[in-house]
Every structure is written in C-alpha cells, then in structure tokens.
C-alpha cells in the first residue's frame, strides 16, 4: 500500500502544480488582454473615420480633430477603378514615410476596395496618415491634429503707454485649461496672474480666453502666446502687441488742425478782399437814399439848393 500512498501524494502535488500553473497562466493571460485592448475606457472604443475615393488620381484630404489619446480606425474606400482588377495592394504612410508591415492585399467587393487599419493615437502619433495603392494614383490623407486656432490677426494689437489692452484667443472646442505666455526672444515666460495681479488679468470662458494687460509700458510690447491645453497636446496661437506713446497720433492731428486754420483764414481773407467793392456800392446807394429823403422832407427848406447842388455834383 505505500506505493499507492506515494503515487496519490504525487498525484495531489502534480494537480496542485497544475492548478498553480493554470492560475499563473490565467493571470498572465489577463495581463496580456489588458495590454492588447489598451484603451482608457472600460470598453474598447474605436472611432471609425471613412473616406471614399472615386476613380483614379483623386486626392482627398480629411481633417480630424483629436482631443484625447484614442484608437482610430481609418478606412479608405476605392470605387470606379478602370479595368476592375480582382485585387489591389495598398499600404499606409505617416507623414510621407511608409509604415512597416502595413501593406495589405485588398480584394474586390461589390466594385469597391476597402483598406482599413486601426491606429493608436498618442501625442507623438498626430500627423498625416495616407493610404496609398500601388496600382492607383488616388490618395486619401487623414490629417490628425488638435483644434487649430484660425482667424489670427496678422496685424499687431496697438495700445498706448499707461493704457490697458485685451488680448483674445478662441477655439471651437473647450480645452481643459488656457495658459498665457510671453515670448522673450526664444523662450516662453508663463504669465502668472496671482503673482502679478496689478499687471495681468485672465478671464477664461470655455472656448474663449482674454488676457488683460494693465499699466502698459514699452517693454510689454512683443509676442503673447495663448495655449489651449488638451489631453493629447496643447494648441497654441500667438498675438503681437505694440505699445506706443501718445505723440504718435498727435503729429498728424496737429497737421490737420493747421490745415483747417489755414483754410479758414484764406477763405475769410479772400472774402474780405472782395468786399470793399460791395461796400463802395452799398455806400453810394445809402448816400443817394439819404439825399433823396432830404430833398423830400425839406422840400420847402432853405437847403433845397444845397441838396440839388449835391445831387448835381454826383
């Protein structure tokens, strides 16, 4: 009986080892599973973006806005190919460089050829992804990037010494937070409102941000950078500020005032020069009026003769 006892003990040990091995294996496999799904959410979410290219040599560019790290499936659908081959080969490129091992054979499916691939997009993975087909010149490019701030002012914002100015940035999506920097030659200096409440005020309102710079001096001129912080990468834009003194607009202003004074003087002088002729004529009218009235009133006066004489003289 010791033989059976020994073999049963061995058997128990063996099964225990098996169980332990199974457990270890399971744990290992579990770890592997979480690694391969690699998605922050509980369910693996894959966004699919499609683009359809018809015929040959059509170039399509699709812009995709990425806010957080995620999985994206890019799909290229080719239709209306001449000759309708049974299969074509296609591969993916990122920023012009072919992605290794991305070449696939695509079979014809109802007059369509679909090439798709899932990409994991992190900060360094943003860029231009294209699907390229060897037999075809058609190209579909997906541009993956954070939201870009358009409508930048190319002209600098202008203000005066001692005045205040408001610099604004806006975006279509709400970032986690906004940050402002001032560019000093090649480096960025973070603008800290709590450290400098007398000079700066920042108002963030979702998709908009406003930086108010108070008590301006000449040194405040320069480039201001607004940064919209997203999970994946910040989106930056800049505004140029120029501070000048009040003497700048004063010069053309004085020129205009001088011009007005000169004009008015000229006009009034010119009229005065033409006036003496009018004065002469009106005086003579007055004079004849006066003589007429005198003769009428003192018709039987002794001055009749003098009046008549005066009249004759004229």
């Amino acid at each position, binding site marked *: 009986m010791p033989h059976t006892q020994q073999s049963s003990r061995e058997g128990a040990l063996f099964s225990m080892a098996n169980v332990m091995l199974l457990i270890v294996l399971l744990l290992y496999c579990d770890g592997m599973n979480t690694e391969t799904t690699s998605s922050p959410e509980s369910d693996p979410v894959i966004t699919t973006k499609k683009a359809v290219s018809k015929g040959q040599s059509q170039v399509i560019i699709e812009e995709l806005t990425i806010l957080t790290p995620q999985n994206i499936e890019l799909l290229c659908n080719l239709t209306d190919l001449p000759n309708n081959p049974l299969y074509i080969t296609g591969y993916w490129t990122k920023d012009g460089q072919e992605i290794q091992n991305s070449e696939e054979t695509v079979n014809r499916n109802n007059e369509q050829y679909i090439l798709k691939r899932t990409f994991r997009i992190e900060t360094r993975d943003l860029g231009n992804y294209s699907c390229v087909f060897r037999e075809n010149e058609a190209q579909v490019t997906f541009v993956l990037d954070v939201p870009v701030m358009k409508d930048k002012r190319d*002209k600098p914002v*202008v*203000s*005066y010494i001692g*005045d*205040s*100015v*408001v610099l*604004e940035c806006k975006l279509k999506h709400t970032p986690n937070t906004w940050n402002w920097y001032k560019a000093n030659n090649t480096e960025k200096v973070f603008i800290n409102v709590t450290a400098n409440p007398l000079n700066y005020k920042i108002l963030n309102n979702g998709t908009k941000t406003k930086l108010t710079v108070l008590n301006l001096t000449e040194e405040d001129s320069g480039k201001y950078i607004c940064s919209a912080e997203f999970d994946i990468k910040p989106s930056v834009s800049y505004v140029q500020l120029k501070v000048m003194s*009040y003497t*700048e*607009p*004063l010069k*053309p*202003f004085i020129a*205009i*005032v001088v*011009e*007005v004074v000169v*004009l*008015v003087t000229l*006009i*009034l002088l010119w*009229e005065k020069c033409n006036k003496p002729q009018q004065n002469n004529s009106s005086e003579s*009218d*007055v004079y004849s*009026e*006066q003589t007429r*009235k005198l003769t009428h009133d003192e018709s039987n006066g002794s001055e009749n003769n003098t009046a008549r004489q005066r009249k004759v003289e004229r």
Partner: protein
Amino acid sequence: MEKPQERPETQQSSPQMAAPDGGWGWVVVGSLFVTSALVFGLIRSLGVFFVEFVQYFDESAQAVSWITSIGLAMQQLMSPIAAAACNVYGARPVVMMGGFLSGLGFILASQAKSLLHLYMTMGFTSGLGWALVFTPTVASVMQYFTMRRSLAMGLGFTGVGLASFAFSPLFQYLVEVYAWRGALLLLGGLSFNMIACGALIRPLGNPKVVEKTENSTNLNRCSFLRSRIYECFELSLLSHRGFLTYAVAITFFNAGYFIPYVHLVAHSRNIDFTEYQAAFVISVTGVADIVGRVASGWASDLGKMRMPHMLVVWTGLLGLFLMLIPAAASYPGLLVVSLAYGFCAGAMTPLAFAVVPEIVGIERVLGALGLVQLIESVGGLLGAPLSGWLKDYTGTYTASFITAGSFIVLGMLVTMTLPYFWSCTAPLPPSPSNRKSQDCSIEDGLLKATSPDSVCETVPRGGYTA
C-alpha cells in the same frame, strides 16, 4: 433824421428772395457735400470703433450702440436751437461753432475712461455740434437755389454715400495703426474741417430776426421775449396741417431708415459671410445710395411728376426692398436687394428735404427743418433700440428688417394724406384759398413786411407792424 440802421431794412426788403441758382451757390453745395460727409458719413462708419469699445470696456453691443443713438438724437433734438441761432446770427457763425464742437467731442472721447464718457463726448457734444452744422447748411443751400433745388440737394447729399464708402476702410486702417484712442483724436481733427465749410457760407442777406429789433422797443420784455422765441423757432408751423402731416411721415421714415445701416453688417455676419463680404455689401449699398441721390434730384427737377408723388414712389419701393432683405439667403441675392435698397434710400433723401419749401414756403424753411428734425428724433430713438430688442428676442434680424420696412410703408401712407397730394399740379406755397384765419398770427404779420407773397390780408393781431 433817419437813423442809419434802418437803411438796410428798407433796402433789402426780402433777404431770401435773392436766390442765385448757381454761382456761389455751387460752393455752398460743396460745403454741404463735405458737411454731410463729415456728419452722416462719419456716423455710418463708426461701426469699426464699436467692436473695439465692446472689447475694451467689456460692455454689451447694445450699450455701445447707444453712443450713435445719443449722437443722432442730439443732432435732431437740437435742430430747432440751431435754426433759432441761425435766425438770429446767420448761418456762418453757427456752422463754424458746430464744426468746432463736433471736433471737440471726438478729441475728448479719445481720453475716455468709461462708456459714460463716450456718451457725453461722442454723444452729446458731437451731437450738438452736428445739429449746429447740418440744419443751417441745408437751409443755406435751399436759399441759394430755387429751380435746381432738388439737384443741388441731391449733389450735396452724395457726400454721405461717398464718405461711408471711403471712411470704413480708412477708419479700419486708423484703428489698426493708432488704436481707437488715436483714431478718435484724428477724427476730431477731421471734423474741424467743418469750420472751414461754415466759413464758405456767405450770407445772402441779414438774418431774419435782426430786422425786427427796431419794432420791438415799444413793448414790454415778457411778450417781447415770447414773440422772439416764437419767431426764432418758427412755432407757427405747429398749427400748419401740411407741416404736421409731413412731420409725422418723416418720423415714421426715420424709425425705419437707419436700422439697416446699423444691422446690415451684423446680419451678413450672422448668416456666415466673412468680414470682407459683409463690408462689400455695405459698400455696394453705399454706391447705389449715391447714384440714387443724384438721379432722384435730377429727375425731380425735370418736373414731370410732383415731388410728393415721387417721394411716395421711392419710399414704397424702399419699404418693399427692406422687407425683402431677410429673404435673400445667397450672397448674390443679398447684394442685389441691398443695391436696390441703397438706390431707393438715396433717392428718397433729397426729396424728403426739397419737399419742405413746397409745403411751408421758403421763408420758414429754416424753422421747418429744425422742428421736423426735433419731431423725427422720436422715430430715430425708437427705431434702432426696437430693432435691437427684436433681434435679441427672435435671434435673427428678420423681424427687425420687416419692422423697418413697415415703418417706411406707414410713412408712405401718411405722406399720401398731405394737403393737395391728390391733385395733379403743385399748389402755390402758402396757398391763399385754404389758409384759415387762425393761421394768421403774429408770424404772418411779420411775413407781410418781408415777402410780397405773404397771404394774410387781415389786420395782424399783436402789435407788430412793419
């Protein structure tokens, strides 16, 4: 012995009778051109500043738009005062003072620290200046012309259109280079040019009221003051039915007229046109406006159709096109409707002024202009805020454009109730057969002395005799 002062009185029996219809008159038209450019053209192009004010003072667009409202309201409310001052001192000094005040308002505005400062400077001061400039200049042009009055008015008013065309990009440039403070300072300097315009207005005769000073020494101070105010402000017009009808019509026109200029840019941006597309729409409207003014002035002087009839035609079309603006969804469609709207708006303006002497007679035109602007200011004060409220309430500008159009149509209907509207020939201004005796007042007694075509043959009440 005769006193020398009486000579001018007996010599120039009617100062307004010498209407040269040319010669120096065209210089005065040029003065009106520059004046209307620097008053209304300037007001229309202030939109550029409002964007800056909203951002700088952190106020709503509605609060900022009150600046123009106050300025326009002051220009109209103070018009009777301008007319009265003109009756006493003559047009020239009043216009020069007005030019100075308008410039001063903008210069002070450049130092503004709050929106209230802007209300006081750009609103009140400049508004008062504009009043002192505009009414006397218009009246002077009317005095200088009889046969070609409408054409002279049309030509003079083209200044508004050309200015709003040229000023918008100019102001944009000034704001970009000098910021709004520097730009306002330069606008003040620009407004000073109206002083030179005032200097150009050579008086045609002595001011109306000066002549009467000799006759008043016998009466006591109180009634003297009252009658002075009465004649300075031309208050007899308030009992003139034609004038009152016209004033009500103009009030309705005013309520609807300015709304598109305030809202057209915003409306274009609202339906997603770019900044430059929106500005182009305004420019196109401006050009059509200019052409409309000259065309209408010239056409009206041809005499084929009576002036009130032409006014009704243009205002009817204007109301129609205004209501069509929100219906234009595409860019070419909006351009076409805006063009038509601009043309009709331009066509209406010289007629709206030139018809005044036909209704009240040239002697009272100054006071009439002053009073009518005072009365129409109610329309202006109501119109823009109402349309702004409608926009906030409904979210689009459709309701406000339709309201503006209906105001204009309402004014057109009131115009049709003018006395002598339905007759084919124009009546003689102050027509004898229809004037009732209550119209005869102190004013007419004074008129009798100055103009041969004064009507009242009854013995004037009050003590004034020529």
